[in-house]
Structure formats: C-alpha cells, structure tokens
C-alpha cells in the first residue's frame, strides 16, 4: 500500500519535472521568437543583409616638450581600401595614374585578391598605405569610376622639430607576433608605439578604435547607417603626453653631436627632469615617420643609430668618478680637504706606475679635483680600502660599494624610459672569485680610483651623479614624462634619494669643480675652456680609456653654482681628452639653455665643435 502510494507520488513528481522541462523549452522558444521574428531591434532584414563595420582609427596623443612645443603631432594620410567583391571592370591605367603607382602593381594585387576571394569574402582589404592628401584628392575626384575602391582616413605621426628621434621612438603597424603578445588589445591594422616614449606610454597615447556600422543590401552595396548610428562607437583619441624635454636644447645638442659618437644627458637637478637626451648618431625624425621603408638601412648602419647610448651603453666613467671616491673618503674620515699628497707624474706601486699628467705637487683636495690628479685619488682610495676600521679589504670594499650604489650606480635608476640598463659596479665577491679570498689588495683594484677597470655606467648615471653633486647630496630619479592632465607619474619621481654621504661634504667637491672651470688658462684647471662669464659653471673632466681606439672624452658640469638649473654629462667616444670635445659641448649646451644663445666670443668654439668630425676615429666592429 505504501509502496503504491510512493509510486504514485513519484510519477506525480516525474510529471512535474516534465512540465518544468516543457516550460523551460517554452521560455527559450518564446525568447527566440521575440528576437528572431517580433523584435526588429536584432533583426536587420530577412533578405541576406548584414552589417559592415567601418573601423574609425583614433588619433594618437600628441607629445609636447616642456614648453608646450609639439615634438610629435599627427597628420592625415589615406589608405586605399578595396572590396574585391564590389569591383567591376575598370581602367587600370587611369587608376595607376591617379595613385601614382605602376599599373602592374594594381594588376598583381587584383590577381592576388581573386586567388584569396573566399578568404576575403565581403571584407575590404588595404591596397595602399599612407598616401599623402594630394594624391588621395586626385583619386577622390574620379573615385566614382572605380566601384569597390575607397579611401580611409588614418592619422600618422608628424614631427615638426627634428629633435629626439631616439627618445620619441617610432610607431608602426602591429604584426602577428605583437598581437599575440597583447591579446584582445590589438587587431591587424592597428598601430602601436614600438620604442622610446611611444612604447613606454603606449597605453595613454594609443586611444581607442571606434566603428561606424553600415547596412549592406543583398547586392552588397552599403545602404544606410545602422540604426542611424545609434550603435556606432566613436574613436577615442589618445591622451597627450607632456615630456620634460626642452626641444630647442635637444635639437641644439643633436647639432653639436653631428658626426660624433656618444651622448649628452641634461637634467634639471631640483626635479630630476631630463631636459635633453642625445644619443649620436641618432635617427632622423623623417626616417622615423616612415620607419618601414628605412628599417633595413637603419639595421645595417654600423654606428647603430637605434642603439640609445644614453641609457644603454655601459662606459667606464673615467676621472669624473674621482668625485665619488673623494666624497666617500671625506665621509669615512680618511680624508680631510687640506690633506696633501705628492704626485710625480703618477702613482708608483711595486714595479708599476699609474701615470698622471704634468702639474705641480703636492696638491690638496680641491686642487686635486681642479687638476684631476690621478695619484691623489689613488692615495684616497688606498686609505678607503685599507681603513683600519674594517677587518679585511672585503669589508672595506663592501662599504665602498654601498656608498657607490647610493649614488645610483650599478643598478637601473628606475627612469620611465624603456630599455634602461643598470651598468656594473664590481662587488667583493667578484674579486674573491677572480683572485681568491684574501688574495687581492688595493693595488689589484687601483684602476677603480680613477673610474677605470670593472666599472660600467651609462651617460644617464653620469648625468645623475652631476645632478646629485649639484643638489649637494641627493638626486631625484631622472624621468622624461611630466605630470599633465590625465597623465600621472609615479610618486618616486618626486622623492629625494639621499646618498650615504653627508650633505655637508659636497661643498668641498663643488669648490674643486668650480676652480676646475673658473681658474683661467694656465692655472692648471682642466676645464677652463668651459668657462662662461657670469654663469658660474662647475665641472669635472674625464678621459676614459677605450679598448677600441682613442680615449673617450667625458665632462660633467652644472650651473649656476648656487641653485643649479641644469646638470649635464657629455660622453664622446674616441674623442681624446675630456677638455677637447666633451667639455666644450657640455658648456655650449649650458650656455644655450641658460642664456638662450651663444655669446660672440664663444662662436668660434661652437663653430669648431659643429664642424668637428670624429667618425674616422670610431672603430666599428
């Protein structure tokens, strides 16, 4: 009896479930009925019509310099699109004439489309890219004769000033690989920044594609806007970017660096903003605009113009590094400014001698900086390394390494510029490994005293050192993007990074640097050529050995002495003494930036720099 009852209840439940099933089916079918038959919203026409998505490309954000000058703008160009299914017989010669291309080009293209007609279907394909408006206008006049052909507006990059080719980077169409690396963000036909600022700030600059939806009738002709454009999406232009670059200074730097290999980096010390960053040889902006055409010749160029030396080339810093060793010595208490050391054209140790140039002896600290005495800094570094406070040279060396790292050396500074390299500062482990523990001593690493040996730093590092000295003990991470509407920069670009050397020590170094420039010819100051009356430039020369040919010429300076406005580093490969090339170049930059022009008495110097051609000295591997 109960079993029977249970069975009845069960079959009752089965019925309920089946009724539920039918109800769900009815719901699905009703909704389908509504969207397929009742509602016009989702239905276009029963006659094989469909929608055509016409992509509207956004204009990329404009890149400005610090004074609001446009570094990179946009200009209009036209792509010619073909919809092969709509093409009728046409006059190939007339079209070729209008578009200024050989008729065979069109014939080949059309033959290709016929081959791939199934793949293309009703879609449009790009036949010609980036035509200038003059040519497009000629085509537009006779467009009615060529059904299936139409123009599509694209905005491409335009460079009003020839400044900062390497810095800005280029934009080109995304390839399959790029799309794979950025899934869902790019479609074939989109453009993207590939290097420099264009790449670093791609997300802000790129904007967003929009589309217009058109309806196509059964003869595949576009008839009207779908729902009067209600469902269209307008392209959203990219954000503008304001850089810290001074366009005039950048351009002037590029002119000075013509026919020289190396770089100049100028920083505003109080903010860490990069005013100019020249890497020579650089890419001409006209090449940049049409990179696809010139890509091969750029890649083949033995001087590697794509290589941004300012942030990517690790060089030995040479004598400018004496400033760092001096500051460490002062801080560690093993050096006082009035200590004097002798120099007899070098520093002798064992049977070796580290040479120096001819100057009077002995010298005190300021004079040693002013005259860039090698021996003096060998003594200084020796007393750092053999400081009795530390048990072994390993400990002393590690301490030294900590100091050096606090200046930003040996690591990426963290600038917002892509592809920055960190350079190299050796560690005690490195020497332990190379020579064995306790098997090395100061004389083994003596070249570090004068910025040679295992040290590798980029020109950006050197400029940052200069800014640190100018600020009396701190730097702000150098950066190239300024905060502006809609573009934020990271908080670290406002933060003062103090070195481990007390800020009170710096004025002693600065005195030496001031005397190096402003003591007049004949005083022994190494950088007298950089002196500009009234500007109070403080500087330090450097001459770094280059295993490939002549020495590299290095110079850092900042000005004015109080409240410095600019700190600059110039590094010229195979150019000899610091005073010969780097020194005039950097000082001309400073003068240009602070005064706006070059004074009459320094015109010949400018002339000499601009005419100078050091390319024959540079050995390309």
């Amino acid at each position, binding site marked *: 009896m109960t079993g029977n009852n249970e069975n009845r209840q069960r079959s009752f439940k089965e019925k*309920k479930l089946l009724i539920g099933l039918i109800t*769900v089916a009815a719901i699905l079918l009703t909704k389908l009925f509504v969207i397929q038959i009742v509602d016009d919203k989702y239905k276009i026409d029963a006659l094989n019509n469909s929608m055509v998505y016409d992509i509207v490309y956004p204009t990329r954000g404009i890149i400005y310099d610090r004074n609001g000058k446009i570094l990179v703008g946009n200009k209009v160009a036209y792509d010619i699109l073909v919809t092969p299914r709509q093409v009728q017989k046409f006059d190939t010669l007339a079209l070729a004439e209008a578009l200024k291309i050989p008729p065979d080009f069109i014939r080949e293209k059309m033959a290709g489309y016929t081959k791939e007609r199934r793949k293309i279907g009703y879609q449009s394909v790009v036949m010609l890219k980036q035509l200038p408006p003059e040519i497009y206008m000629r085509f537009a006049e006779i467009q009615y004769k060529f059904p299936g052909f139409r123009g599509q507006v694209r905005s491409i990059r335009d460079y009003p000033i020839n400044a900062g080719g390497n810095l800005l980077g280029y934009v080109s169409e995304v390839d399959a690989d790029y799309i794979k690396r950025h899934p869902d963000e790019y479609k074939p036909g989109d453009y993207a920044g590939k290097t420099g600022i264009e790449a670093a700030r791609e997300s802000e600059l790129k904007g967003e594609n929009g589309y217009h939806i058109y309806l196509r009738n059964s003869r595949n002709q576009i008839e009207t806007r779908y729902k009067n454009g209600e469902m269209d999406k307008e392209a959203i232009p990219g954000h503008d970017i304001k850089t810290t670059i001074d366009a005039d200074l950048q351009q002037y730097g590029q002119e000075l660096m013509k026919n020289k290999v190396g770089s100049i980096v100028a920083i505003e010390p109080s903010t860490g903003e990069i005013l100019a960053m020249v890497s020579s040889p650089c890419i001409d902006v006209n090449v940049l605009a049409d990179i696809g055409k010139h890509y091969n010749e750029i890649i083949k160029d033995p001087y590697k113009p794509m290589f941004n030396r300012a942030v990517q080339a690790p060089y030995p810093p040479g004598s400018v590094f004496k400033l760092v060793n001096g500051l460490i010595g002062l801080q560690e208490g093993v050096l006082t400014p009035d200590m004097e050391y002798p120099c007899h054209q070098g520093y002798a140790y064992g049977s070796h001698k580290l040479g120096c140039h001819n100057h009077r002896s002995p010298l005190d600290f300021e004079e040693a900086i002013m005259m860039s005495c090698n021996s003096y800094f060998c003594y200084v570094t020796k007393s750092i390394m053999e400081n009795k406070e530390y048990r072994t040279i390993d400990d002393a060396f590690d301490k030294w390494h900590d100091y050096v790292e606090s200046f930003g050396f040996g690591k990426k500074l963290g600038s917002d510029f892509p592809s920055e390299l960190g350079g190299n500062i050796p560690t005690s482990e490195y020497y332990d490994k190379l020579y064995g523990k306790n098997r090395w001593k100061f004389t083994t690493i003596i070249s570090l005293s004068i910025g040679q040996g295992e040290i590798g730093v980029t020109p950006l590092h050197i400029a940052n050192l200069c800014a640190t000295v100018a600020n009396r003990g701190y730097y702000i991470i150098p950066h190239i993007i300024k905060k502006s509407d809609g573009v934020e920069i990271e908080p670290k670009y406002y933060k003062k990074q103090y070195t481990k050397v007390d800020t009170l020590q710096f004025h002693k170094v600065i005195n030496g640097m001031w005397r190096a420039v402003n003591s007049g010819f004949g005083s022994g100051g190494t950088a007298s050529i950089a002196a500009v009356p009234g500007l109070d430039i403080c500087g330090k020369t450097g001459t770094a050995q280059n295993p490939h040919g002549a020495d590299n010429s290095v110079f850092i300076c900042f000005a004015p002495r109080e409240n410095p406005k600019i700190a600059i580093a110039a590094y010229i490969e195979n150019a000899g003494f610091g005073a010969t090339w780097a020194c005039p170049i950097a000082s001309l930059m400073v003068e240009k930036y602070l005064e706006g022009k070059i004074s009459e008495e320094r015109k010949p110097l400018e002339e000499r720099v601009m005419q100078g051609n050091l390319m024959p000295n540079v050995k390309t591997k």
Partner: protein
Amino acid sequence: MRNQHERDFGQSVDWKLVICYLVLIIIGWVNVYASIHSAEPASIFDLSYRCGKQTLWIITGFILAAVILFAINPGFWQSVPIPLYLFVLALLVAVIFFGIEVKGSRSWFEFGPVRFQPAEISKISTSLMLAMIMSRNNYKITKPGNFLLTAIIIGLPMLVILAESETGSALVYVGFIFMLYREGLSGWYIMMIGMAILLFILTLIASPFTAVLVLIGVIWFCNITNYRNFIPNFLIEAASICFLAFIPHIWGQISEAAVPAAGAVISTAERIAGSIKPVYLLIGIIVLCIPFLIYKAYKNRNSFILASILSFLCGLALIFSTEFIFNDILQEHQRKRIEVLLGMKDDPTGVGYNVNQSMIAIGSGGLTGKGFLNGTQTSYGFVPEQSTDFIFCTIGEEWGFIGCAAVILLYIFMIWEIISDAERSRDPFTRIYGYCVACCIFMHLFINIGMTIGLIPVIGIPLPFLSYGGSSLWSFTVLLFIFIALYREEKKYF
C-alpha cells in the same frame, strides 16, 4: 536461440535516442563547418581546421559509443563508480597544479597537440557514483546521513571545479537537484534555490526594501495556503503588504514634518530621521512579530511556522550580503556580465559585446534563416567563440527560428525520452543514472542557449553534441551511451 539474440540486439537498443544523437552530431558538424567557413575556405575534412578535427572527434566518438554498447558488459558500470570517482577527483585537483591556463582558468591538461578537460569526465563519474550510492536498498534521501553523503558526492567535484574558475561547469552540478527531487527530496529545496536567485536579483535591480517585502509576501503566502479559510487570509495579507510597501513614503513624510516641529533640536532630529532607512523599520516590524509567531507555532505544534521564520532569517541574511557577494566574492568579469544582463549597465562594446553580437546574429536569421553558409555575422568573426560556446548563433542565423526550434525540440525530445526510459527501468541504478544524464544535458542546454539569447549571464559551457571540441563531444557520447547500454540490459527483462 541465435535468432532470439539477434532480435534482442536490434530491439533492445533505444534507437530513438541513438537517432536523436546522430542528428544532433550532424547538425553540430555542419555548423562548426559553417561557423568558420568563409574565413578559412577548406574541405570539411581538412584536419588543420576545426571542422576537420571535429570529423576526427566524431569518428572516434562513434567508436567509443560502439565499444560501450557492444563490448562492455553493462554490469561493469555498477562496479566501477568508486575508483572512477576518486580517480577523476584526483585529476580535477591535479589539473589546478599541472594544467595549462586557458582564458583565465586552469582546467585543461595538455598532451602534445591534444587538450582535455577533466571537468567533462567528472559529470560521468559523479553520475555513476550517485546512481550507485542512491540505488542501495536502505538508501533514503530523507535520512540526514544519506542526504549528507549525497551532498558531498555532488559538492566535492563542484567545489574543485569552482576552484579552477570554471563557473559554468560547476553550475551544471546544481542540476542534479532535479534528480534528487525525483528521488524523494522535498520540492521546497528547488523552491528555495529559486527564491534565493529572485532575492539576489531584486536586491540588485530594485532595492533591499523590495526584496524584503517580496520575501515576507512569499513566506506569508505559503503559510496561508495551509489554512482552511484561504480567501480572507489572502486578502488580509495583500492589504498588509500594500501597507508595508508605503513605509518609505510615510517615513519620508514623518521625517520631513519632524524637522520643522522639533525647532531647536533640528540637527539631532535630522540625524535620526536621516540615519534610519525605511528597510530597517520594515524589518523591525517583522522581527517584533517573531516571538508571537514562535508562541503560536509552539501552541499549535506547527513546525511550518518555525521553518518559515528560519527561512525568513536566511533570506534576510542573503539580502544583506548581496552587496558583499556581488562586489567582493564575484570576479570582475562575472559582475560585469550580470550587470549587463540585468540592464544595470549598457555596454555594447565591452562585456555586452558578445551577447549583443550573438543576439544580432540570431535575430538576423528571422523565420527561415539566411541559408547554409550564407550567414554573415557569424562567419565574419563578429561573434566570438562561434564554433564552441556560441555555436547556437550559427544555427540561429543560417537556419532561423525554424532551425532553432527544431534543435531545441530535438533536445527536449531526447531528455523526455531519457526520463521515460529511466522511469520504465526496474533497476534503480539505471533510473537514477538516467535522471543524472537528463539533468546534465538539460543544464547545458538551458545555460548555453539562455546565454546566447541574453536570458542569463554569459557563462561559457558547450552545447552538448553540437559545440566544437573533443573533450565535450566524447564525454557526452560516453555519458549518453552508458545509459543506452544500461537501458538495453533492462529491456531484456521485458
């Protein structure tokens, strides 16, 4: 004897199911071809394209089906569930650590060119396990121990799959509740799930106040139906619910009037009036009734009232945690999909893109569709995932309402047939397993088609037998053919 056997062989297989299966497979195959047709013109057998690979899956699927039907003794399925269930569970856990990541979820194993998803086989192993446990003689779902065991069997794989962030596959397990209902679970459980979804949606699109009001109304209504004098009670309920609905309005009037009257203590009065929301008043009134109700329940020995109070409190908890669940537990994409579905945000280019495109594709099919290979929306790639999860768009566009209706009716017929077969069989194992199969197919059907036509949020699960993909095709084939084999064994009793 030999003749007898041959007759058995032919008659005992449920050919209606097999034919349904074959027709669905062919529809799927043709539409997978159509969905990629004009982008990649190729032969339907070309192995480098999806339709060609699908051909391969179909042929191997047939072989699997034949093996299950003719080579494996149906008794095998009654002995295998425990090891199989544990093995698949282990696979499900392993895939979290060793699987590859596809679209944000770690649920695929990759062996060279072949990928497979353990979540798909887990449907089979769970169904077999349920059938075995629940067909034991002394099993009764109303026993708490048995109920708990069943819940664990369903819950374990479901939780692991959720951890793989395959929400869709996990949701399918909710469908087993219909099987449990058939096996004696109270209908109130289904009711409660439905109510929870309703409250969730109401809280999101209307307000917590509305949700609480509806909750009170429904619970009250359920209580009234138990009384003899239904109509007067119903009228009283309707009137009081209407009165309660005016609370926000009345409260607004009072607090407005209170401010000028209070004079000197404006700020205090204002603060009190402003800080008490009408919904708290409503809840306050109801909670005041609770002791009275408990007393009444005790006096009449009416446990239904107690259950009502408990459900009310649960419902309340859900309503107040909705905001939290929605904003903090759901993932970004899930939240957006729900927002689009409920019309809280219109976003035709972002998250709404899929649904909008899919509905345009289906809608443009009209009554009779554009014809085979003539679809433009799907084959130009406007609809994403068009050969897998959105395969129904191709059917909708190229075959129109008639095609869609045919496909849906075919599924309904298949589910109906499975349920009838299950009811007819004597062995509870076959019956329970049959219901499990029906539930799985039903959930996939409802979720997948519901998603393409904008009835439910976008949840990526395949359409059984139709969507491109070996894992899904094989597992549904095995799922179905185990049932056909079991049922064939049954028929020999007739």
